[in-house]
């Protein structure tokens, strides 16, 4: 994957790109995305992948003027336009799934293929989603992976937690990334999407890990019910970070969109 920059109305946007085939836009979750993401690699086998970073993620510039759900939705449409794409396959994971669903709802004639991977955006009082913003780093693997031990190893790989600069870098990254994500996810990751889902016309596949403990699989039914004709793909032995745990199976599910 190459890291490139495209100019948009608000800020220059950083995006990862690679692969060959039909254009596919991947919107990352609250944890961000890196060039070595295994799902991007899988998708790039048969698609030209574009994975823009939300402003403030990675080394990208912050955009203070992007404050609410409509701002995020329109900004991401700006990115698609700036990349020169028309009707790309739109794929979003977690927070990115929430943004992708909003994009498809606000412009239903511009999205014909949509993949939502463990998307945020709905809320069910019977199944409250844990507060991601109070979770301590050591508690993350349990929440995010089917196999917490293997997940912890993935999360800490290449990080030297004894480095005195590590904590400060970690705090700055967290403040930039989760600070931005908080604008649509804090304190409850719901901004009215349920009343807009009916507008989506895209052929939609909803992908969920059976062991997702952050956004429990029961939420899949809300999306399936809300989007006409949506197909649900449940993946066993996978948690919320299904992109890391089962990249090939997710890519295969996305592949059903053509």
């Amino acid at each position, binding site marked *: 994957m190459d890291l490139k920059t495209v100019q948009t109305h608000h800020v220059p946007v950083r995006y990862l790109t690679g692969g060959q085939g039909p254009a596919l836009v991947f919107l990352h979750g609250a944890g961000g995305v890196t060039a070595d993401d295994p799902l991007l690699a899988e998708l790039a086998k048969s698609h030209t992948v574009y994975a823009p970073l939300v402003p403030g993620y990675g080394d990208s510039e912050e955009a203070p003027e992007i404050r609410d759900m409509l701002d995020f939705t329109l900004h991401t449409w700006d990115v698609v336009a700036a990349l020169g794409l028309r009707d790309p396959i739109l794929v979003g994971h977690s927070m990115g799934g929430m943004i992708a669903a909003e994009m498809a709802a606000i412009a239903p004639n511009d999205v014909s293929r949509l993949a939502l991977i463990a998307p945020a955006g709905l809320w069910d009082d019977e199944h409250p989603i844990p507060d991601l913003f109070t979770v301590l780093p050591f508690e993350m693997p349990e929440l995010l992976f089917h196999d917490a031990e293997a997940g912890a190893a993935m999360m800490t790989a290449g990080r030297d937690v004894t480095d005195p600069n590590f904590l400060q870098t970690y705090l700055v990254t967290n403040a930039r990334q989760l*600070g931005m994500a*908080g*604008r649509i996810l804090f304190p409850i990751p719901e901004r009215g999407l349920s009343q807009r889902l009916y507008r989506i016309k895209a052929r939609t596949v909803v992908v969920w890990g059976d062991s997702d403990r952050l956004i429990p699989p029961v939420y899949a039914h809300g999306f399936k019910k809300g989007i006409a004709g949506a197909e649900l793909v449940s993946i066993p032995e996978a948690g919320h970070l299904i992109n890391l745990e089962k990249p090939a199976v997710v890519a295969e599910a996305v592949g059903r969109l053509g």
Partner: protein
Amino acid sequence: MKFTWFNLMPWPYLPDDFREKNRSVWVDIDQRLFDPAKSHEVYNTYMDLLEYAGTLGFDGIGVNEHHQNGYGIMPSPNIIAAGLARRTVDPAIVVLGNSIALYNPPVRVAEEFAMLDCISGGRLVAGFPVGTSMDTNYCYGQIPSLTREKYQEAHDLIIKAWTERDPFAFNGRYNKLRHVNIWPRPIQQPRPPIHIPGGGSVETYDFCIDNTYSYSYLSFSGYIRAQALMNGYWKRVEERGAPDKSPYRAGFAQTICVAETDEEAERLYSEHVSYFYNRCLHVYPGFADAPGYRTIKTIQSGALSQYAPPTGGYSSLTWKELTEQGHVIAGSPETVRQRMEEMIKGLHVGNIFCLMHVGNMPADKCMYSTKLFAEKVMPKLRNIFPEYADDDRFWCKPLAKRVSAGSLPAEPARAPIPAE
């Protein structure tokens, strides 16, 4: 010097095994530990103590705002302040303060502070904290990375509401108001003095310097650990070209316990200090700072390291360590005087918020400590900054002639005579 007697109003009945059995004193504290019937006495005792301090020559009595918090049972400080305004005559009513980003619309703060100023005869000192992340984000659901923008707008609206004499429209991002026209407005003109609690961010330093507000550092870790932060503030005051370095541009909160001797202080107060540092400050780290609440600049400045608890946490500290390291100033009047003088000169602060009710301290001990401080310590600290004695920009200016509560006769003397 301005001394304000401050009560955080801790809940005094947290069990001995509170730390072991509960993850946090704040945000998700166990509801069942609060006993409303017992709180009747707790509230009234705490208000009595504030009123008592008001009779001993303290310049102010102080209250603050916390939510879902075991060491602060004042979600609405204005309610307590209203009671104090009625029952006291001389001291400033220091409300430090209202977390203005939480009020919808913030005009409510302009109105309530105006009411307090009017009822008290111009004795209000107003505080505008951004609010802790626990209160503002986790309890009251404000989006962390938008909190400061919302705070700024609330501030601008309140100041305008206090100072404009004609109705105006306010088209803010967070507040859309067609007819702002507060009624009543404060006695103090152009506005009551404003103190801003802060935790080391450069933006807050500048905000205070530019608006002639007093910067208050409200920490529980004492004056020795506060030195670097306050040095940063005074350096900024100079850099920013403020016309003076008046010590009243700054305030500091300090836990203080006075007895006849150092030994007596330890004997009387150590269990209550321990209650405070062990049980009251037991906050789940996941609630400490929501991502986005602090600015990147503040995190990068390293100021947070001074804000954080000492290595190993407070719970491991002994009385000796707590007093020697300055978390707590405790001892005989002479010991306390020496350390207070060291603090006041070292930090160059003119406003001292005296935390004299500590943890589960009973009223008799609290009164004893307070009286000794007022009679044997405070008078000796009065004139540390004689060159700034006339600086009244950061303190209230009450009416010369004030009425007192309860001045009506018990019964009407006779039927009122109708006006002709």
